């Protein structure tokens, strides 16, 4: 596709109107002078139009789902319905303070309660909390619940180990570490958990096994019932990473597969917008074993009234201020209502159909590891390009020139030069065919062109090594650098 991104030579916001005055603000009566600012905050004073123009121009130098196919594997970049945006901005939703009396927020509590019920059914787990702000936050909270459970059982001293497959998302081992566990990787065999290796590793030291299914190779772990049984047999618990739930909505669920606790990402499966990095909303689902440990407050219904219940003696307490990301929960509720029973299942069917279609076509362009039937995403390997001196990174950058976002690259690490591609249910056959054609053109392009990519964006290939070696992380850094060197630095934002 012929495409050129806007290329504004836009100065940094502070260069639009360099701050003049450093006079301190008027003192606050009653405030001791030594606590008061001696200099005003250094920041520009701009007209509203100047601000709007600045950030509008910046927005034009950014890909979103609304502009581009966004095939990031494990990120489930699907269309974010506009109706959810409109609903979340209702004054009766946005202008609610979390510390209002319960009687004045019955509608908000009702939405949270009803969404919890829907998600409990989707996950097959008995209770759901919406307090976590994101998936990784849910992982951390769930592992604290696992910890509390084993403490109550008197087994915490022994059960210090979390097992996870070598294909696990990076957040899994990081969350386990934050929750005070050590981690041990279970090798994969043909892209799935090596059951024999798991059986050999699981022991009375195992607190839990963390798994995403379908996994990051896009494969359904078909031995899932054997996996969960193997861990349960040794007294361990099962954690379900719901990042990839999109592929199995209405087909199977974590409860059915034998998991004790799960997180979901509403910003993936339930289409809340990802905001350029966040906000997300992490759902925490727990079976009967761990439900008493969920964060407080729990939302309960008594007669026709909804209440916040803090009387959960085993609860881990709070993991975030207030009740979770209500603005996102409301969007997800609208999404679930609109889809209903058949619609949610259709999501799984269509996303898996899209994925297999694209995988079959692209499997003739680049090699695909492992078996051919995949779920929500699939892997390609860029290794054949190496002979031409081209790497997966070059291919990713070249795809940007086609007006599509690049897939997730170099993950999972068990595949050399990996590209991980996810094309959710909202992408049409026409979008898929265009994406496939874009990959074909990119692969067929000359090494010189691939190395020179991207050429159609606001900037060319970025020197990320330099960013890390000589970190410039703020305007303050830019100022001190400018003060050190006489000549204008290449990173100066002056036009």
């Amino acid at each position, binding site marked *: 596709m012929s495409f050129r991104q806007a290329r504004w030579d836009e100065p940094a916001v502070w260069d639009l109107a360099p701050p003049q005055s450093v006079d301190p*603000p008027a003192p*606050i009566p009653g*405030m*001791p002078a030594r606590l008061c*600012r001696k200099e005003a*905050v*250094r*920041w520009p*004073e*701009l007209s509203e139009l100047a601000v*709007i123009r600045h950030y509008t121009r910046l*927005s034009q130098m*950014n890909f*979103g*789902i609304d502009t581009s196919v966004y095939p990031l594997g494990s990120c489930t970049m699907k269309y*974010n319905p506009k109706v959810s945006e409109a*609903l979340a901005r209702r*004054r*009766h939703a*946005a202008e609610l*303070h979390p510390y*209002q009396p319960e009687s004045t927020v019955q*509608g908000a509590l009702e939405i949270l309660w009803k969404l919890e019920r829907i998600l409990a059914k989707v996950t097959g787990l008995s209770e759901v909390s919406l307090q976590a*702000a*994101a998936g990784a936050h849910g992982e951390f909270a769930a592992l604290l619940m696992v910890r509390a459970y084993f403490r109550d059982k008197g087994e915490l001293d022994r059960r210090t180990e979390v097992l996870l497959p070598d294909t696990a*998302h990076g957040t899994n*081992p*990081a969350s386990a570490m934050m929750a*005070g566990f050590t981690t041990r990787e279970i090798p994969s065999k043909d892209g799935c958990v090596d059951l024999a290796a798991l059986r050999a590793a699981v022991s009375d030291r195992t607190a839990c096994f963390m798994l995403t299914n379908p996994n990051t190779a896009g494969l359904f772990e078909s031995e899932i019932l054997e996996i969960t049984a193997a861990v349960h047999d040794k007294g361990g618990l099962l954690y379900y990473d719901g990042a990839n739930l999109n592929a*199995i909505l209405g*087909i*199977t669920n974590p409860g*059915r597969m034998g998991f004790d606790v799960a997180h979901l990402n509403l910003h993936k499966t339930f289409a809340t917008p990802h905001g350029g*990095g966040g*906000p997300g909303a992490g759902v925490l689902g727990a079976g009967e074993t761990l439900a008493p440990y969920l964060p407080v407050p729990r939302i309960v219904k008594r007669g026709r009234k909804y209440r916040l219940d803090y009387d959960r003696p085993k609860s881990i*307490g709070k993991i975030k*201020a207030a009740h979770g*990301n*209500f*603005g996102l929960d409301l969007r997800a509720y*609208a999404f679930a*209502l609109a889809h*209903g029973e*058949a619609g949610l299942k259709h999501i799984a069917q269509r996303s898996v*159909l899209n994925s297999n*279609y694209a995988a079959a076509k692209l499997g003739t362009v680049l090699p695909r590891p492992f078996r051919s*039937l995949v779920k929500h995403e699939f892997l390609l390997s860029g290794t054949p390009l190496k002979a031409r001196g081209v790497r997966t990174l070059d291919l990713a950058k070249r795809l*940007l020139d086609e007006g599509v976002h690049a897939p997730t690259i170099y993950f999972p690490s068990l595949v050399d030069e990996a590209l991980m591609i996810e094309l959710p249910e909202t992408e*049409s056959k*026409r979008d898929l065919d265009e994406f496939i054609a874009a990959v074909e053109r990119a692969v067929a392009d000359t090494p010189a062109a691939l190395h020179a990519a*991207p050429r159609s964006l606001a*900037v*060319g290939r*970025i020197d990320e090594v*330099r*960013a890390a070696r000589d970190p410039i992380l703020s305007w*303050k850094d830019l100022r001190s650098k400018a003060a050190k060197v006489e000549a204008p630095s*290449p*990173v100066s*934002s002056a036009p």
Partner: protein
Amino acid sequence: MERWIPDEAGEEAALRAALGISSNDELFVDVPKKARMGRIGIGAGREEAEVVAEIDKILDRNRPTYRYATFLGGRISTRYQPAAVDAILSRSEFYTAYTPYQPEASQGMLRSLFEFQSLWVELSGMDVANASLYDGATAGGEALLLCRRIHEGRRFLVPASLPWEEKSVLANYASGPGLRVEEIPYDPRTGGLDLDFVRSAVAQKDVFGLLADVPNGFGHVDEGLLELKAILGDVPFVVSADPLALTVLEPPGSYGADVVVGEGQGFGIAPSFGGPLLGLFGCRKEHVRAAPGRIVGATVDVEGRPAYALTLQTREQHIRRSRATSNICTNESLLALAFVVYATVVGPRGLAALQASLAEKARKLATALADIPGLKAPRFDAPYLGEFTIELEKGSAHAFLGHLEEHHILGGHPLADPRPGAASAGERILVAATDSVTDRQIQKYATVTRDFLGAPGGAV
């Protein structure tokens, strides 16, 4: 809602034909029969108009803050957000983007985040800031973990006046590595930190960090903050600060803070029943490689033009896995954008003027509530900006606030930990003078309070 899944005539059949399958069931033969589920058990799908009607019906059961005289605060603000902020947040190039893993395609968000980081550096007096964390409370939790990475010890000190929710979050972040969160008593007259307690705790050599908040959990500004660094020495010092307060107060970097965190929601973001919020996090440069979360750095492209990218990623979970500084992946980028757009639309003078006007309203409220028998307002004798604590000498905080609500006043929130068995320090309420309250509403607050307490002048 059919139209969100493309259904051009025969489209799915064509996809299946290309795969040589006749039914979608063939796509799921790898899911063992025993693991299959039956029906989900939720209703049928609905048209968009029906969804809107249903959700509006439920939302109508809410009474939003604008229907009231609103005195609610405590890190979460109801203040007016200029329409310009939402206009920028509604640019779908921003809000439908993912984390900027491909920097060349994401310069807009990366540059916005760089400006956001720069603003928090200016406000906090730190050297570096990250691109956001979940909220102020979890930013405190991450600060605690950073302190432990840079200093030995088992004990982390926090004010006893810290909101109970934040203490609970901190205790959770501390629990993994087996660390202890310990409360610093406060002076019963001023609510300020007991500095002698801090001195003796630090002398025992087991303290790896201290967090103090400004304003504190009682709404007051504690002059003792300025003494802490001298007491702490090389023990890391975290300040949790309100960003609006920092437009008129000294930046914590100037009195020795090593980390400055905060809740950024009041800058451009509606309260939305408490989420999403915005965690602010900055620290000194020497600790940046121990810091959590995404960080945007300035660099150049192949032609030497200014360009921005996520940097120092070897700290992060997707590279370092179990040795990462944090598990955080998704943060609050869009809210970070709101923060910098809000601050720039209002401008530094406007922000300081706003804080000054809130402080003036709070003084009027304190004057109106002073000398009501049965009420201590403010409870503590210390400077304040827009909030302070009141204490009932009779009656419960819940009954009092319920009474105010019947008179169309959201009068604040109880400070007590609502969990059964939690220690209570009396019927205390945090009251905030918000930007929307009028002089008349302040007088009405006082009148209704007299009425509740059976004090003279209470007829409404």
